[in-house]
């Protein structure tokens, strides 16, 4: 492979060149782009299952009293819904899909640092998800603890908690290895001349994320092992009857699970930071502030976990400390929002679907973030803790934030992934349904939450009926939006996409769509005076 290359372009990564054909050639591929796509397909399947479970819950909640099934099934449903959505969809989320697909190209690398380890992470992901799902069909019935597996209930219930917990453990391992891979990739494989402060901001957000994956996930890993040991061996760490402390479980669980929300949201913020400058054709405002705020969020976000535990009997000292820290972590997040808005200011804005989704993200994320502050404030938290208000808040973050950013990212990089365009008009319609449906589904939950509707209840008092029914219809609109979006993207082939359909300035837009196996024919070098977002 020498001179000829310039005349015959390398085959794209979608063409099978190895010794296997068809499915096997994907399952054995260590190409970061293929692994990214495989994550995406798997995640879409899980997402749809999760959405359907959500709708089934909404159906039961359509009227007060029992409609279709009883409380135990409801408990099983929200547990499974939570496990699927959190551990198999949003935690691997954008990092596994778009981090794998785009990040190596964006930093000018041929692949990640450890391609085989990358494929191994993918298999761990599938295995972990598989184990978590078998919990539904084996043992004494589906787990009913909620995705948080709170002790002491999780060590007492007779349902099949161990399988779910072990599945989550394996999924955590997959996440750790992805983080490890990304850290080394970004340290060792950036294009010559690309210093850390010339790296695009999506990779930056992945870098911060990767550190959380590496440093927080092991804590929940060991905690989940403790739960298993607690059930099998009665070690008693969380069992008050043996001298243990259930609140200690909550500490350990949230030491991971709060940072986990940053594992989800940081890459989402990163994607938005790519999309906004591209469609405003303006240099991103405050590059350094955005880069550093990713690290700051990761760092401070590590020390706010106990804001989930204000009502659990913690010491008053710990409560105000964690409330204070929670307010601190809002600062870097707000910096980002400020920078996005300022980047758009006086830009020549091009309202294409990716940008629309990005705007949707900013709007929904702001609502999620502000309501997060009311939850982080000690005094108000006491009133709305464990109510539908919390349900609304975290759906605004994980779905309105991470979910919409995911949709934005698909619409942004789709031409690069497949070398094809999609129908813009339909994408816009899908956005409309998603956005309206989403708000109709979750906004009422804020209100009935403040009125006192508790979370994780299958029944409710008559005064919440209107809110619940609005939510139901919102759920239907949302479902229509999801179907519209997916059929638009995956049912038929669009026009052939150019290398750079949006006028982006990062490296992935300099290579053909779809990119060749090794991404670049000539490895890029970043000049002294070049910058990642030199629009104007």
């Amino acid at each position, binding site marked *: 492979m020498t001179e000829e290359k310039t005349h015959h372009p390398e085959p794209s990564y979608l063409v099978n060149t190895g010794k296997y054909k068809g499915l096997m050639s994907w399952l054995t591929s260590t190409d970061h782009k293929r692994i990214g796509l495989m994550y995406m397909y798997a995640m879409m399947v899980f997402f749809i299952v999760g959405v359907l479970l959500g709708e089934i819950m909404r159906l039961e909640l359509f009227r007060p009293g029992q409609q279709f099934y009883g409380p135990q099934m409801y408990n099983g449903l929200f547990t499974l819904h939570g496990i699927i959505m959190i551990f198999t969809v949003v935690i691997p989320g954008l990092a596994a899909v778009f981090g794998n697909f785009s990040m190596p190209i964006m930093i000018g690398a041929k692949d990640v640092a450890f391609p085989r380890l990358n494929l191994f992470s993918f298999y761990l992901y599938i295995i972990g998800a598989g184990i978590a799902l078998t919990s539904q069909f084996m043992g004494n019935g589906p787990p009913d603890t909620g995705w948080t597996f709170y002790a002491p209930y999780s060590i007492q219930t007779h349902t099949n908690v161990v399988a779910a917990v072990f599945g989550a453990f394996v999924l955590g391992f997959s996440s750790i290895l992805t983080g490890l891979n990304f850290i080394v990739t970004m*340290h060792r494989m950036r294009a010559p001349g690309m210093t850390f402060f010339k790296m695009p901001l999506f990779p930056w957000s992945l870098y911060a994320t990767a550190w959380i994956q590496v440093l927080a996930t092991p804590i929940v890993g060991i905690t989940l092992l403790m739960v298993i040991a607690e059930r099998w061996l009665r070690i008693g760490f969380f069992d008050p009857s043996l*001298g243990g402390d259930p609140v200690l479980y909550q500490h350990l669980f949230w030491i991971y699970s709060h940072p986990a929300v940053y594992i989800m949201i940081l890459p989402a913020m990163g994607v938005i930071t790519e999309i906004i400058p591209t469609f405003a054709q303006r240099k991103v405002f405050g590059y350094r502030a955005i880069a550093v705020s990713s690290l700051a969020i990761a760092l401070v976000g590590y020390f706010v976990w106990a804001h989930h535990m204000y009502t659990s009997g913690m010491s008053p000292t710990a409560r105000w400390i964690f409330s204070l820290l929670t307010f601190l972590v809002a600062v870097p997040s707000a910096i980002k929002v400020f920078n996005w808005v300022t980047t758009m200011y006086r830009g020549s804005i091009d309202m294409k679907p990716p940008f629309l989704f990005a705007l949707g993200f900013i709007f929904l994320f702001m609502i999620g973030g502000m309501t997060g502050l009311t939850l982080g404030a000690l005094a108000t938290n006491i009133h709305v803790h464990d109510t539908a208000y919390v349900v609304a808040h975290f759906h605004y973050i994980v779905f309105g934030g991470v979910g919409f950013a995911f949709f934005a990212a698909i619409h942004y990089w789709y031409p690069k992934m497949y070398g094809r365009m999609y129908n813009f008009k339909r994408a816009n319609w899908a956005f409309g349904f998603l956005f309206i449906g989403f708000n109709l589904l979750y906004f009422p939950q804020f209100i009935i939450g403040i009125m006192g509707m508790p979370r994780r209840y299958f029944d409710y008092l008559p005064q919440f009926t209107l809110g619940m029914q609005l939510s139901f219809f919102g759920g239907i609109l949302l479902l229509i939006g999801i179907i519209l979006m997916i059929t638009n993207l995956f049912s038929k082939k669009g026009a052939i996409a150019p290398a750079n359909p949006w006028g982006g300035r990062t490296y992935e837009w300099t290579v053909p769509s779809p990119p060749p196996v090794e991404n670049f024919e000539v490895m890029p070098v970043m000049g002294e005076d070049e910058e990642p977002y030199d629009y104007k």
Partner: protein
Amino acid sequence: MEHRDDIGAKLGMWVFIFTEILLFGGLFLVYTVMRGRYAADFHSAAHHLNAFIGTINTLVLLISSATVAMSITAVQKGHNKFAVLLLFITLVCAAIFMVNKYFEWGHKFQIGLYPGSDLMLTMNHGQVMFFSLYFFMTGLHMFHLVVGGIILTIVMVKVNSGAINSTRYVLLENGGLYWHLVDLIWIFLFPLLYLIT
């Protein structure tokens, strides 16, 4: 041409070690909390551990760490034979450690002291916590020791065949790093479990 980046490989290993440190970190956190609660019980329970075996194991692990470190020097100098010998000594140390543990745990099981046993359920809360932590922490440590032993066996075979040599030995370095991690954790486990009487 294949891509090779030794520093990258080592960086990867270090990051992995960080995750291991935090994995044990969760347990040390439980230890801290429980010790704060039941200081007196921890002291009295620690008397039941065999500090002599603990000490022997500490020495054995330290020696094995030194031999692994030296084997890197040996490979760098091209003394592969000597490196194999050093790695072999390391593995012998690991075996001694395991045998000691076998007797230590075996004795405890014999007198009916193991998680969930009737004896343990009659003890007071602090002692239950202590012994649960003892079994969990040393058990997890042992698991890591076995994994490390397997890694070093593979490394030893490769040094012997020349696949690891003075121009490429990052695998040996990484295997060594992992082994030192096992040592590092024991350095904390030993005083916290055996010596606080």
